[in-house]
């Protein structure tokens, strides 16, 4: 405060202020984007707000979040001429918001063939769940033109499930674990083990204590989020990470978004 009294502002403070403003702007955008996506899956008759989700993707991708190129061959194994199709079985009672966010990020990065199916174990699925991956790609008649397949199947499953290579990989269960797998296609985990652990820890916190926790636990997580975001631009330090996506989606899902610190 004394600095202002002098009538001149320390340039360091100015820079800090500018940076905070920038962070706040990005956070609001992220919030708007996730809300847009959530609206399409949780409220009836809402149309997919594509402008919001694409602004999210371009923002986050243009930011320095994704350093280094991630090579699909090294991540998913060699391409044998077939579409590398990621199959996600999700229960329509619990739409996986994080995966929808990650899907739109993947679409910015790769040529993704997105398809939504309804499994015969499920009778009726609201129409907004059928369009939650956006409109059909104009080239979708030719599967070989795509780098990656994202096949979402609404199915009567107790736990979200992902299948990729049935020969070499067992199914991955749980939204958090599938989110980790998908995020690795976007950006490598932080090379610093401490930082990587922090990201993991936040993801677990989001899914165990926010999404499934009691009101008390949720309140505690919200306080922790508040203080973490007070210290850093993103939850796990200077870079945007899966922790941010997971925490935001879970805040939204547990219904305490209004009291969130964002």
């Amino acid at each position, binding site marked *: 405060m004394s600095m202002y009294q002098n009538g001149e502002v320390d340039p360091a403070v100015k820079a800090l202020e500018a940076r905070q403003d920038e962070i706040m702007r990005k956070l609001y955008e992220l919030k708007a984007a996730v809300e847009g996506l959530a609206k399409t899956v949780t409220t009836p008759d809402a149309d997919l707000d594509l402008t919001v989700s694409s602004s999210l993707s371009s923002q986050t991708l243009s930011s320095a979040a994704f350093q280094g190129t991630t090579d699909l061959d090294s991540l998913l194994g060699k391409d044998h*001429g*077939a579409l590398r199709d990621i199959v996600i079985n999700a229960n329509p009672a619990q739409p996986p918001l994080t995966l929808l966010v990650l899907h739109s990020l993947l679409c910015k990065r790769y040529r993704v063939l997105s398809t939504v199916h309804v499994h015969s174990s499920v009778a009726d699925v609201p129409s907004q769940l059928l369009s939650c991956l956006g409109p059909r790609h104009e080239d979708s008649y030719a599967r070989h033109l795509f780098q990656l397949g994202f096949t979402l199947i609404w199915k009567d499953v107790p736990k979200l499930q992902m299948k990729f290579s049935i020969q070499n990989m067992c199914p991955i269960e749980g939204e958090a674990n599938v989110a980790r797998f998908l995020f690795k296609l976007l950006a490598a985990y932080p090379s610093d083990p401490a930082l990587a652990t922090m990201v993991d820890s936040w993801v677990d916190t989001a899914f165990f204590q926010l999404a499934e926790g009691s009101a008390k636990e949720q309140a505690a997580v919200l306080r922790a989020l508040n203080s973490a975001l007070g210290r850093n631009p993103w939850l796990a330090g200077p870079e945007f990470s899966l922790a941010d996506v997971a925490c935001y989606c879970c805040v939204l899902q547990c219904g305490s978004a209004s009291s969130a610190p964002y």
Partner: protein
Amino acid sequence: MTKDEVQGATEEEQQAQSKKGLKKQQKEAEKAAKKAEKQAKLAADQQTTEEDDFAKDQYGVPPMVQSQQKLDRALVRIQDLTPEKADQLIWLRARVHTSRAKGKQCFLVLRQQQFNVQALVAVGDRASKQMVKFAANITKESIVDVEASVRKVEQKIESCSQQDVELHVERIFVVSQAEARLPLQLDDAVRPDGEGEEEGRATVNQDTKLDNRVIDLRTTTSQAIFRLQARVCQLFRDTLTNKGFVEIQTPKIISAASEGGANVFTVSYFKTSAYLAQSPQLYKQMCICADFDKVFCVGPVFRAEDSNTHRHLTEFVGLDIEMAFNYHYHEVIESITDTMVQIFKGLRDNFQNEIQTVNKQFPSEPFKFLEPTLRLEFTEAVAMLHEAGVEMGDEEDLSTPNEKLLGRLVKEKYDTDFYVLDKYPLAVRPFYTMPDPSNPKYSNSYDMFMRGEEILSGAQRVHDPQLLTERAVHHQIDLEKIKSYIDSFRYGAPPHGGGGIGLERVCMLYLGLHNIRQTSMFPRDPKRLTP
């Protein structure tokens, strides 16, 4: 010998004879008396019986129904016998499924198709001893008219479909009597394969069942299968009609083989010979060229293939689709797959009872599918098979074991029993298949699979006479023989595509059965022409 002597002798003889005769007569008289007594007793007995049988008008074998009179009698269906009907007096007509006499009671199980109910005839003020005896002697599978009162039961009757009620019979008449010796027992015919061996009970082999199809079709399993099959046909018609398709009838006697010609039946046709149609394809395509836009047909298809497998018949019911499309043959795939999905959904939502009935005898996993249907490309299938360790060329057709394996791989990843494989190599498809626009090695053709077995083969057809001629020449086909086929495209033909499925095969695979003869009412194969 003197006369006297003779006389004496005769007298003696006579005396002796008369003595003997007397004795005999006496005996006979006694016998007769005894007999008379017996007869009198019997008569008396009968009399008393007849007098005793106060219920003699309440049972019997009435004269054959020759439409003598039009009775205004309401008959109740067994499936409608619920506790709400308790204490009502009702009439019903049913078959005697089993009967079991026990002292003064006789338990009958009465059956109508897959529904059955327990009925009791017991000596009392409504039924006489004789009536119970009569009921107990009615042969299995006879048709009876029964008047009975509906009673709630305290303990559920586990062996019957109507578990909460039984019938107390007041009148019973035999409408049509079955012969006492049945060629097969219905209970044996529905016994699951393994169970019979374990418990030392009989099962009926398939040929016996097919030889006595009339009785075999009465079993709960057969009833369920063919009711479900009828629904498949109906759903096929309804769905396509709603999509704007027109049902057409095509000739079955044709002058030339539509595909190749090796597998057609020849029939004599006046002074020349003709063939039985092995596919309505040519006629479907002609209807498209005649501006019917979207057509389907349901009818018999004949294949003179001497293959005795679980899935080949020489005559089956073909469900065929052909449609003009606007810009891409995937419009055709989407129409066909959506029709299939509507059929699967209709069965899943309305035919669970029938499916469960069949499962009791032939257990199988429920049929799973995705909406919209999964579409994979041929190259992907080859890659999946390579990954699973199968060696095959990129342009090689799928062998039957590879199709099965692929079905398992797809099921494991996508958990669906129904999918489309698109973009087959051009080399393995018929000459009229449209080549792929970007890669001449592949074609705009597709197969559809249920539980890993092919049920439909289809493609965009070449609708340009020049390209069609080129393709035919490439396949070394005699152009003279297919002249009329090529000519039908000379006066403007819309781009079109289609495919055909076998009704029996769809039913077999939907239900997870292992022999197509189970889903063909009167199957025709190289070894069977009757019944």
